[in-house]
C-alpha cells in the first residue's frame, strides 16, 4: 500500500474516531436531557394525580370506576361507605348489588350505555352494605382509550330513597286530601238537600196554618206578626242552604281555557239584576277578553256588583267597575260610595256565612264564593275601605 494511501486512510480513520467521540458526547447530553424531561414529567404527573385524588375524595356522592364487566377498579370513600366493600381487601362487582327484579332493566340500560357512551338518570334498586334496598340514580359514561375503544365505565351514584319516600308521601297526602275534599262537598250537598225537604214542608204547613186560622189572625196583630216572622225565618234558612249549595259547587269547575268577553258578561249582569233607581252603575272601560269559565266569571262579578249596589249610598248610590291591564295580571275594581267596612272586618268578610248586617237576604255566602273562584284561578282578592269612605273590591287574575 502506498504511503499516500496509508496517509489518506489514517486521516479518514482519525475523522471517524473523532466523529464517534462527538456522537458519544452528543448522545450523553441527550440522555441527560431525557432524564431531566422525565423528572419533570414525573412531577407534573404527581401533581395531576394529587389533583385527581382530591377531586375524587371531594365528590360527596358515591363515585365508581369499573371495567366493562362491572368489576370496580376505583371508588371514592362515599362509595366505600355506601356499598360497604373495601377494594383493598376484596373484589367488588357492581352486579352483586343489583336488586333481583331490576336486573333485566339494568342490563338493558348498560347495553345502552355501551352503545351511546352515556346514560343519564338511570334509576334502580340496589343493596347497600347492610343489605337494605335503596333506590339510586346513576349518571354514567364510558372512558375511552386513545384509540377510542371503551375501557372503563364510570358513574356517580345518588341515593334517592329518601327523596322518593317524600315524593310518595306527598302524593299520598294529595290523594287523601282530594278524597276528603270530595267527601266534604258531598256532605254539603246531602245536608243541604236533606234540609231543604223538611224546610219546604214547614213552609207549606205554616202557610196552611196561616190560611186556616186567617179569621183568628185577622183580629190578633201579634199572631199575625209571628206568622210573618216565621215565614221570613224559613225563607232565610232557605237562602242559607242555597248559599251552601252554591259555595260547595264552585270548585267543581276548574279554570277552563275558554275566552270570555267580560264586557258582555258585565252587560248581562247589569241587565239581569234589579238596580234600584237611586243607584247608577258605571262601567268605565271596554273590558278585556280573558281566559276562564263564563259561568264562574259571571258569578264572580255578579256577587261583587250586587254587594256594591246593596251597600251603596242610600240616596245617590254610585257603583264603578274598572280594570287595569298589568303585565302578568288583570286587576279589576268594583267600587261603591256606601258606608264602608271597618278595617277589622276586611279579612273576615271573605269567610263563609260571615255577614256584617242582619239584613234577612244577606247570607254571607257571596264574598266567600268570590274568594273561592279567585283562588281557584290563582288570583287574589282584597278590599279597600273605611267607615263612610266607600268600599272598593280588587281582584287580580293572572293572564
Amino acid at each position, binding site marked *: 500500500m502506498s504511503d499516500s494511501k496509508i496517509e489518506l486512510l489514517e486521516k479518514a480513520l482519525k*475523522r471517524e474516531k473523532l466523529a464517534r467521540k462527538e456522537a458519544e458526547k452528543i448522545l450523553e447530553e441527550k440522555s441527560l436531557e431525557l432524564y431531566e424531561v422525565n423528572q419533570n414529567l414525573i412531577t407534573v404527573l404527581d401533581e395531576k394525580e394529587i389533583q385527581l385524588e382530591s377531586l375524587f375524595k371531594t365528590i360527596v356522592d358515591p363515585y365508581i370506576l369499573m371495567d366493562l364487566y362491572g368489576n370496580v377498579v376505583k371508588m371514592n370513600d362515599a362509595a366505600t361507605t355506601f356499598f360497604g366493600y373495601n377494594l383493598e381487601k376484596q373484589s367488588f362487582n357492581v352486579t352483586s348489588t343489583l336488586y333481583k327484579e331490576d336486573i333485566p332493566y339494568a342490563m338493558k340500560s348498560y347495553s345502552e350505555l355501551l352503545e351511546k357512551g352515556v346514560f343519564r338518570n338511570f334509576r334502580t334498586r340496589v343493596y347497600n352494605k347492610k343489605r337494605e334496598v335503596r333506590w339510586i340514580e346513576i349518571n354514567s359514561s364510558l372512558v375511552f382509550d386513545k384509540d377510542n375503544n371503551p375501557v372503563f365505565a364510570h358513574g356517580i351514584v345518588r341515593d334517592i330513597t329518601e327523596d322518593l319516600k317524600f315524593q310518595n308521601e306527598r302524593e299520598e297526602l294529595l290523594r287523601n286530601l282530594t278524597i276528603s275534599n270530595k267527601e266534604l262537598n258531598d256532605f254539603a250537598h246531602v245536608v243541604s238537600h236533606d234540609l231543604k225537604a223538611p224546610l219546604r214542608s214547614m213552609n207549606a204547613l205554616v202557610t196552611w196554618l196561616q190560611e186556616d186560622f186567617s179569621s183568628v189572625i185577622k183580629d190578633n196583630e201579634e199572631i199575625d206578626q209571628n206568622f210573618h216572622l216565621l215565614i221570613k225565618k224559613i225563607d232565610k234558612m232557605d237562602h242559607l242552604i242555597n248559599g251552601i249549595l252554591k259555595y260547595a259547587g264552585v270548585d267543581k269547575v276548574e279554570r277552563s281555557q275558554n275566552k270570555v268577553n267580560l264586557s258582555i258578561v258585565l252587560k248581562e249582569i247589569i241587565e239581569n239584576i234589579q238596580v234600584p233607581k237611586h243607584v247608577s252603575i258605571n262601567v268605565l272601560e271596554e273590558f278585556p277578553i280573558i281566559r276562564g269559565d263564563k259561568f264562574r266569571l259571571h258569578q264572580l262579578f255578579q256577587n261583587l256588583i250586587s254587594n256594591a249596589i246593596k251597600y251603596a249610598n242610600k240616596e245617590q248610590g254610585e257603583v264603578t267597575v274598572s280594570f287595569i291591564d298589568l303585565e302578568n295580571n288583570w286587576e279589576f275594581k268594583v267600587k261603591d260610595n256606601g258606608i264602608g267596612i271597618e278595617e277589622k272586618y276586611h279579612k273576615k268578610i271573605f269567610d263563609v256565612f260571615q255577614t256584617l248586617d242582619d239584613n234577612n237576604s244577606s247570607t254571607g255566602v257571596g264574598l266567600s264564593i268570590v274568594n273561592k273562584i279567585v283562588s281557584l284561578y290563582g288570583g287574589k282578592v282584597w278590599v279597600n275601605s273605611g267607615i263612610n269612605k266607600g268600599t272598593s273590591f280588587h281582584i287580580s287574575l293572572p293572564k
Partner: protein
Amino acid sequence: MKGIVFTEFLDLVEQKFGLSVVQQIIDNSELESNGIYTSVGTYKFTEMVSLLTNLSNLTKIAPNDLLKVYGTHFFDALVKNYGSILNTYKSPLDLLASVDAHIHVEVRKLYPDAELPRFEVTKHTNDTLIMIYHSSRALYAFAHGLMEKSFEHYNQASEITYKLLKEDGTIVQFEIFKK
C-alpha cells in the same frame, strides 16, 4: 443542517469518487467541523455549500446535477432508517403530497430546530401532483432526486418537470405525473 445529510454525502462521494476526493474537498473547504460529522450532530449549512462547490470544481459536474444524484442516494438512507414510516404510504404521489402536512410535522417533533423546506401542494389527483418548493437553501435539485427515487421505490414510472418561479431557485414548481 442535520449531520445525516453530511455523513451520507461524504459516503456517496467516497463511493463514487474515492477516499482521496473526500479528503480533497475537505481540505479545500474551510470547515469549522474539520470535516468530522456524525449523523446525530448539527452543522452549518455553509459547510455543505463549500463541500458541494469543491466537489463540483473537482469533478466538473454542475452542483445541481450532483445534488440530484445525492437526492436519489439520500432516499435510500431514509428507507434504511425510516422504512416503516414510508411503508404507511400506498403510492409515491401520496407520499410526496404528505411531506408537508405529515412527515415534516413529525420531523419537527423530533428535531425542533430542523430547518425544513416547505412543499405547497396546489393540485393532487390520482396521477398528477403539483407542488411548490419553498426554501432559502435552494436545494430543489436534491428534492428532485428524492422525488424520482420515491417512484422507483414503489416500482412506478414517473415524469417530473420543474419550473423556477424565482430565479435563485428558492421557489420552484414541480409537476409530477405518474406514468
